[in-house]
């Protein structure tokens, strides 16, 4: 059982992000870290390999400046190796470019049974990349997985919906996007951190992948303006005249919380 996991390395969300006033791109100069959303995919992949009695987890990432900090974290958790695509020409890539790059990189990962990604990233959250990768690789795509089981050549997924979950099965290989909370990501142990230093990270450029028509120059989308989000509306104050609890239930129902 070999699993490829797409892991995005992002600026630390604890540090307020900044946009370049000229290009409106997010500044990504500092150290990047493993997107928390992808820690779930990595954990799920490791568990699936353990359950299958063997196999390898390969990481695939596209990030600027040959950044590997986030990959090291995922390698310390237990992934075997990583492919990193880093190229100045990728600055300003849109989500489709990103998917094209990742799809090509996945083809370099050797034999695999499954590709995992997060439903959406923490910083970009277009929620588009995994499905685009599936289309580009010609593989079935299953989204919003809250649990994954492999039996024979089939993947069984519980797909999170507003009302509950759907049971979805798909032949392998497939691309599955996982939601936060599918599994509890492990903390890398001290041993894992030391071992990660010696695990292979294959760093590739766009031309190594034989790709063209990707990157900032080819972006099909353009950021024309950035405006502050509208101020939040004042909340509604309800005075409890004995029916307050009903109002709360009503409100929660409209929010589909209950």
């Amino acid at each position, binding site marked *: 059982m070999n699993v490829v996991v797409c892991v995005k390395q992002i600026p630390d969300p604890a540090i307020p992000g900044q946009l370049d006033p000229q290009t409106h791109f997010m500044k990504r100069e500092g150290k990047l870290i493993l997107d928390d959303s992808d820690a779930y995919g990595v954990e799920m992949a490791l568990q699936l390999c353990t359950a299958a009695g063997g196999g390898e987890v390969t990481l695939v990432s596209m990030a600027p400046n040959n950044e590997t*900090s986030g990959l*090291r*974290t995922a390698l*310390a958790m237990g992934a075997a190796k990583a492919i990193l695509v880093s190229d100045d020409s990728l600055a300003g890539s849109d989500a489709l470019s990103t998917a094209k790059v990742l799809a090509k990189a996945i083809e370099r990962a050797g034999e695999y049974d499954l590709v995992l990604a997060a439903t959406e990233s923490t910083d970009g959250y277009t929620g588009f990349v995994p499905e685009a990768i599936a289309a580009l690789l010609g593989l079935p795509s299953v989204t919003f997985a809250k649990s994954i089981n492999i039996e024979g050549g089939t993947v069984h997924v519980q797909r999170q919906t507003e009302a509950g979950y759907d049971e979805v099965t798909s032949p392998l290989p497939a691309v599955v996007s996982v939601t936060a909370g599918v599994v509890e990501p492990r*903390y*890398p*142990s*001290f*041993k*894992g*951190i*030391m071992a990660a*230093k010696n695990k292979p990270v294959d760093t590739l450029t766009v031309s190594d992948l034989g790709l063209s028509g990707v990157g900032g120059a080819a972006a099909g989308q353009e950021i024309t303006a950035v405006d502050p989000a509208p101020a939040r509306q004042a909340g509604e104050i309800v005075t409890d005249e004995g029916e307050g609890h009903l109002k709360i239930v009503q409100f929660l129902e409209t929010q589909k919380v209950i």
Partner: protein
Amino acid sequence: MDLSLTDDQQAFRDTARGWVEKTVVPNAAEWDRTEVMDRDIVRQLGEMGFLGATLPEELGGTPCDYISYVLLMEELGRGDNSVRGIVSVSLGLVTKSIVSHGTDEQKQQWVPRLASGEILGCFGLTEPGNGSDPGGLTTKAVRDGDDWLLSGQKLFITNGNWAGLALIFARTGGPGPRGITAFLVDPSTPGFSARPVHGKLGLRAQDTAELFLDDVRVPDRQRLGDEGKGFGIAMAALAKGRMSVAASAVGTAQAALDASLRFALERNQFGKPIASYQLVQEMLSDMSVDTDAARLMVWRAADLCERGEPFEIAASKAKYYASEVAVRVANNAIQVHGGYGFIDEYPVGKYLRDARVLTLYEGTSQIQKLIIGRDLTGINAFN
């Protein structure tokens, strides 16, 4: 000089912090209240590699530098000193002594099991009649063929009831430090018994024991180091141990400061957050400066140790200063919290109770001052 941490050091700290935040912090108050810690913590400390940090890989350890080690201790100390002490003693005092002074056979027999958390070690130096003056200890080891028979009593022994290995210091020769030898004792040996010490001011969840040895038979091949060299082994272990106590004191001070900051920004009096009053800011800034200074002293000692330079005096200074800082900062934290600091819904009371022991064990503050004074003046004022 560059005080920034390497990627590895940051990764170690983040791992320790994440684990402490998830596993220790939510439980610390309850363990303290009930005086019982979940014993599965020991397995996890092993699994995470904490009990093998700095040890060679071939013995089941995770090689890392001393800065990483003190970062780990700071994080554990930030979460709960009861948990930190398990590691300080089992790894810092016992396992490392075996790695430094043990025979190959002793290393193979004990170190991998200690590093994985399969067993814990305890360090039996202090006795009812000998604390600051361990050179006068009276537990006896008498030669009997290829074995030794150990008899005596040890007090305040961390991990003493849980331990699968006891490092016991006993008198094999004349009076004074030169008559002391170290032994690796299996606590399941007949004649060995342990009893929990209850009613502690702090570290209430930590296993502290009184040990009784009544003709405990120990084969000579479980003697650690040469006859008469036990005191040196104990002192070498404690010199490094002081760095870990100091680091955990920094962690406790940091935790107390963090809690106080949170509280001061949320708590309103006279229509404003109390953080907006200068007298409260004074307390917070004193706490912050104290904590930073203590941390820098710990890092200096660790850096000297890592580079193979004499670090012992720097470690004593760090231990003395940081432990007093932990007490002072935790005490101030209660002041910032007002009455809320006095009840156990807030963690600061526990910080103070736990910090209190840091100026006592592994050499009291007075003993550290005597060590520092002896170094400054060349005059031994111990006795």
